[in-house]
């Protein structure tokens, strides 16, 4: 296709200018409608909450600014532990999840035990509630006496990793299977080995297909790291719990919840952005 140079002289006709004015007006109108309906909804909701019979008590117990401010440093310190746990479990999940996905997609009778092992693993850890895995790993493994005394957060990290790896492994495998078989055939006919085909052709395409699903798992993991508090690790949730016990006021929980939301927001937005971009790329332009 020749790179046709745009005519610098072209000016939109009166007709087109009118259409643009109309579209601009229509889009301003929809922004205004969205704005007004949002305000109305917010007003109705806040009015009915504030005027509910128990609002004063709830306000004092859940939204007490003094209690929240006092608990804040402890919760923030706890959140730092959550972040570190998240960092290491994300790496662990990426490695173990990929490994599981590859194990499950090995073909041939020789690999049956490996496939069966991976299948059994994902069945087990996708089936078990995370909190039970936390108890089993956090109290069971140290009780074997094989390992030196380690902080509860370490066992929490391991429990989260082994659980989420099962989910992520399945997502990656779904992505690999969504790559059209013709891609494998093309790679193998170039002389690439099975392993090279997986590494250089199938996995890169497969991961791209499941990025939104993977990000979703990551967001979910971001808040589930708060569950390590059941092992006694002093994270944001545990920090809040301690403050609650001291003051008989639930505000610290609300503070911790807000902090977790703040932590998740950038990732949630990024996921939306990536999904939208992916959708745009797959749809070959057009307005439909």
């Amino acid at each position: 296709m020749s790179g046709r140079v745009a005519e610098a002289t072209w000016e939109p006709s009166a007709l087109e200018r009118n259409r643009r004015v109309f579209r601009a007006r229509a889009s301003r109108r929809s922004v205004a409608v969205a704005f007004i309906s949002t305000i109305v909804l917010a007003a109705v909701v806040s009015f009915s909450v504030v005027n509910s019979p128990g609002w004063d008590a709830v306000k004092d117990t859940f939204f007490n600014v003094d209690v929240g401010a006092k608990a804040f440093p402890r919760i923030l310190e706890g959140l730092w532990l959550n972040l570190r746990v998240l960092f290491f479990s994300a790496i662990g999940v990426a490695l173990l999840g990929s490994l599981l996905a590859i194990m499950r997609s090995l073909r041939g009778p020789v690999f049956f035990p490996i496939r069966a092992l991976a299948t059994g693993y994902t069945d087990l850890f996708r089936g078990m509630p995370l909190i039970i895995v936390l108890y089993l790993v956090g109290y069971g493994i140290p009780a074997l006496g094989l390992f030196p005394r380690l902080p509860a957060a370490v066992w929490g990290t391991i429990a989260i990793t082994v659980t989420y790896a099962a989910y992520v492994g399945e997502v990656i495998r779904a992505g690999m299977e969504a790559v059209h078989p013709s891609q494998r055939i093309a790679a193998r006919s170039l002389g690439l080995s099975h392993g090279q085909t997986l590494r250089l052709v199938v996995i890169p395409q497969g991961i791209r297909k499941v990025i939104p699903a993977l990000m979703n798992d990551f967001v979910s993991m971001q808040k589930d790291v708060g569950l390590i508090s059941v092992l006694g690790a002093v994270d944001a949730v545990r920090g809040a719990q301690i403050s609650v016990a001291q003051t008989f006021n639930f505000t610290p929980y609300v503070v911790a919840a807000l902090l977790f939301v703040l932590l998740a927001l950038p990732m949630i937005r990024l996921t939306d952005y990536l999904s939208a971009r992916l959708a745009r790329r797959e749809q070959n332009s057009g307005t439909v």
Partner: protein
Amino acid sequence: MSLLELRGVRKRFGTHDVLQGVDLSVAKDEVVALLGASGSGKSTLLRAINLVERVDDGQILLAGEDITDPRIKADAVRSRIGVVFQQFNLFPHLSVIDNVTLAAVKVHGWSREEARAKASGLLSGIGLGDKVGQYPDRLSGGQQQRVAIVRAILTEPELLLLDEITSALDPMLVGEVLDLVRSLKDTGSTILMATHEMGFARSVADRVVFMYQGRILEEGTPEQIFDNPRETQTQEFLARVTHR
């Protein structure tokens, strides 16, 4: 009055002018073939008429009504236009009969029985009567494309747009698709088709339009265009596609 009329239609992608002011009219029951190299703007023109691509300037009138007016209901316009694509675009999760009757039932409000009866009649008429329950991946390319044509014409659209409908087909299968288009012409249909089948354009089209770099460079009867092309670009294009 012409059924379809384009006035100074422009479309720009980034800094690339794909359509640089196209004027064209198609009369009722007229068959017009669009010729031109890849990238000359044929597909974009068809997409603009189907309101899949918003034009940057100019007007498109369907039966006298300006369909580029922003107040127009685009879905209603599209339901009056039948489109057949190069890659068939049948829905793989639906059987042949469900592909064909989907819009008739969901958009045009036909009863299921009515839609099925008419669809089976049309499919039997082109030798696909035994395929109604099959899924598209069980059919050959030519069969799929003929199903796609039946899907497009079931509700008797005012205008039929064909976008290089034989380009993805095995040469052995092109004939059966073109025969179907020919029979549509004989029963009276308004067709605008982008095609690379020169022989077919010559024998079926009432008028041939040659596009070059987003403009209509030359138009006329098939005899004029194929036997006495005026423009050098038309001559070069025809020389290239006919001596392969």
